[in-house]
């Protein structure tokens, strides 16, 4: 048993850490966030040039062949820097779905660009009514000759405002919430009939809702078998949850460090406020939450690439439940420990705090995953 990263994994994580340190001061992040693109084009390019976007893809397709552990190593450092580039959406989800379900031609066509960062992908799996349930799909894809015509709306597509390619789920048969009958399509961002309502996100990134009005795509846009995408989506979301756990751990580490520093520096009643036991115990609770989150991130990474099973489903649901709760706990208690300064835009802690709570709203919140876990409970 050994829970340490191996040498290669450590080198990978150090590479990302160096890059983030160089490019991602708090002030620069605010600048990137306010551009039209909504993130740093040069940082994005460097992620590609250093091979970091190729991490999860198979070696025969020019990838690094990395597992959930390597992906987490990257994500943890992106989390520490509070990076707003849509790595999770483009590489882990978008590239991951194509890599998992695409045919040889589709993989050749798209993966190289995704692995260099030339192609940015966004993924639309949610709809206004779906409430985290990726099987709740009302967007339709109707066959018209050999083409498909898509109609519907995809909700909160992070990175969708600037994506070159969109991967969306749509129903080719069945009724709303059926697992069968869901298909995945890859759509060019400039396709006719595709409208976006773009917005900044509360945690500093950008996204959009996608409106599909008679968007026509060819049969070559269908990813995997028609009507059989539910399992593909569930599996890839599992990997994305593992990756998101990695990011969350990075964000939590910095949030805890900042809070601890503040407890040591800030003086009231003539002493550092960290001398007060009520604040010490709260800080100890935050560290304990971080440890639980680390443990579950490790466990999630260990099942991320395993074949699907109820055990994998349970671990993924448990990991997202724990991470979401830890993240929100550290966010709220961290703000409280900082007092007024923790509420200000100009202090970086507040931005970490916002990201931590929004992680709960991505890929299913703690309640959603608790329900999933409860449904999979074994009597023994």
């Amino acid at each position, binding site marked *: *048993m*050994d*829970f*340490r*990263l*191996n040498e290669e*994994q450590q080198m990978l994580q150090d590479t990302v850490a160096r890059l983030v340190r160089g490019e991602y001061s708090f002030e620069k992040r605010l600048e990137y966030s306010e551009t039209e693109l909504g993130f740093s084009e040069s940082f994005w390019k460097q992620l590609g040039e250093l091979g970091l976007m190729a991490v999860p893809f198979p070696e025969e397709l020019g990838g690094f062949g990395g597992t959930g*552990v390597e992906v987490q190593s990257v994500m943890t450092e992106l989390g520490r820097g509070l990076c707003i580039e849509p790595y999770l959406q483009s590489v882990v989800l978008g590239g991951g779905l194509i890599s998992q379900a695409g045919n040889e031609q589709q993989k050749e066509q798209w993966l190289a660009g995704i692995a260099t960062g030339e192609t940015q992908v966004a993924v639309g799996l949610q709809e206004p009514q779906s409430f985290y349930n990726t099987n709740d799909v009302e967007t339709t894809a109707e066959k018209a000759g050999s083409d498909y015509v898509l109609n519907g709306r995809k909700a909160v597509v992070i990175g969708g405002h600037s994506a070159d390619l969109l991967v969306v789920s749509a129903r080719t048969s069945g009724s709303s919430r059926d697992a069968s009958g869901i298909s995945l399509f890859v759509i060019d961002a400039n396709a006719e009939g595709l409208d976006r309502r773009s917005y900044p996100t509360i945690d500093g990134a950008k996204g959009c809702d996608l409106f599909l009005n008679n968007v026509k795509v060819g049969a070559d846009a269908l990813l995997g078998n028609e009507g059989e995408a539910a399992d593909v989506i569930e599996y890839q979301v599992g990997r994305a949850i593992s990756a998101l756990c990695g990011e969350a751990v990075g964000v939590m580490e910095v949030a805890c460090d900042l809070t*601890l520093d503040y*407890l*040591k520096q800030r003086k009231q009643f003539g002493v550092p406020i*960290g*001398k007060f*036991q009520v*604040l*010490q*115990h709260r*800080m*100890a*609770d935050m*560290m*304990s939450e971080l*440890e*639980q*989150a*680390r*443990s*579950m991130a*490790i*466990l999630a*990474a*260990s099942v991320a690439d395993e074949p699907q099973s109820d055990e994998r489903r349970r*671990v993924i*649901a*448990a990991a997202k*439940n*724990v991470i979401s709760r830890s993240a929100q706990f550290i966010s709220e208690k961290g703000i409280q420990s900082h007092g007024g300064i923790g509420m200000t835009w100009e202090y970086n802690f507040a931005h970490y705090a916002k990201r931590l709570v929004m992680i709960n709203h991505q890929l299913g919140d703690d309640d959603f995953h*608790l*329900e999933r*876990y*409860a*449904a999979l*409970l*074994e*009597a*023994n």
Partner: protein
Amino acid sequence: MNMNYTAEELAFRDEVRAFLDAKLPEDIAAKVKGFRKLSKEDHQRWQKILSEQGWYATHWPEQYGGVSWTPVQKHIWDEESCRYGVPRSIPFGVNMVAPVIIKFGSEEQKQQYLPRILSGEDWWCQGYSEPGAGSDLASLKTRAVREGDHYIVNGQKTWTTLGQHANMIFCLVRTNTEVKAQEGISFLLIDMNTPGITVRPIITLDGEHEVNEVFFEDVKVPVENLVGEEDKGWTYAKYLLTYERTGLAGIGLSKAALTHLKQLASRRVKNGKPLIQDPTFSQRIAQVEIDLMAAAISNLRIVASVEGGGVPGAESSMLKVRGTEIRQAINDLARRAIGPYAIPFAEEEMDQAYDGEFLSDPDAAPLAAHYFNNRKLSIFGGSNEIQKNIVSKMILGL
């Protein structure tokens, strides 16, 4: 990153399972799994079996009759023995005073006491806490004054677990009142049959006699019963506490309690369906199972770090808090699972030998009492608040 056991470790696990399959008495296991009372005889019977196997003293060097398990092997033993319903070993002799004697005691003390601990001849109890010295242990007042070849001991110890069965007690006593509190404490080994010692039961809120008060009135203790040097007892006490803290998180015990809970909730019925399928209750179970999953990995991370040569530090304190909260949460759910039948205090049904009709589920009777009894988990072994103080001092530097 590797979360698997090696082939050798798996072989050891098989050996443990084979031993428990063959040697663990069924009646004892049933009591443990059902949270029923164990008698002194139950403990001694099991200890004898363990001793014969050579697996009783897992914290001792081999030269004294211990078994040199790696941290991972100890972990495997803990997991398996909890799963099988092995009685928790009474730690005061084998896991507490013995490591102190081995590290700091004289050759004579080693020869006199260690074999008697292994054979079960001596039953030790712990004389640490006093009415005025709980979390602030160093403020203890029990006084030992040297007179010739003896110390004369006067004072009172409390919360003495299973002291009613013990013939030996190890005590922290004050030998010097002129110096800082921590520097005037000595570590004495005292025969419980010495004149002047009185043991009085403390009945806990569940009606149980588990802990005692021990009074010392002009008790003559030979000076050769002093461990190490006079006034250095605090150092030895702290060394002992590191042994006490390992395993206090009780991850294996929580896993066994969770299995018990899920079986119980599968038998109980609410709205015509098994309780385990009730939306609210299944989510409560799910939440505690998820939290236990995370704590179990945190525990493994500590085990792996110790296996790699690290020293368990304040991480164990964090895990003690987390682990005891989880176990209390499981006890809480087990109590809820029997609904109004948590209210009757049917002592006859708590006896494993009971063969009459049960009021409700055969496992129900001890559950409310067990829940109350286990409120102790967050109090003993350094209260959870003290653990947070340790985290804040040792890890956070506050």
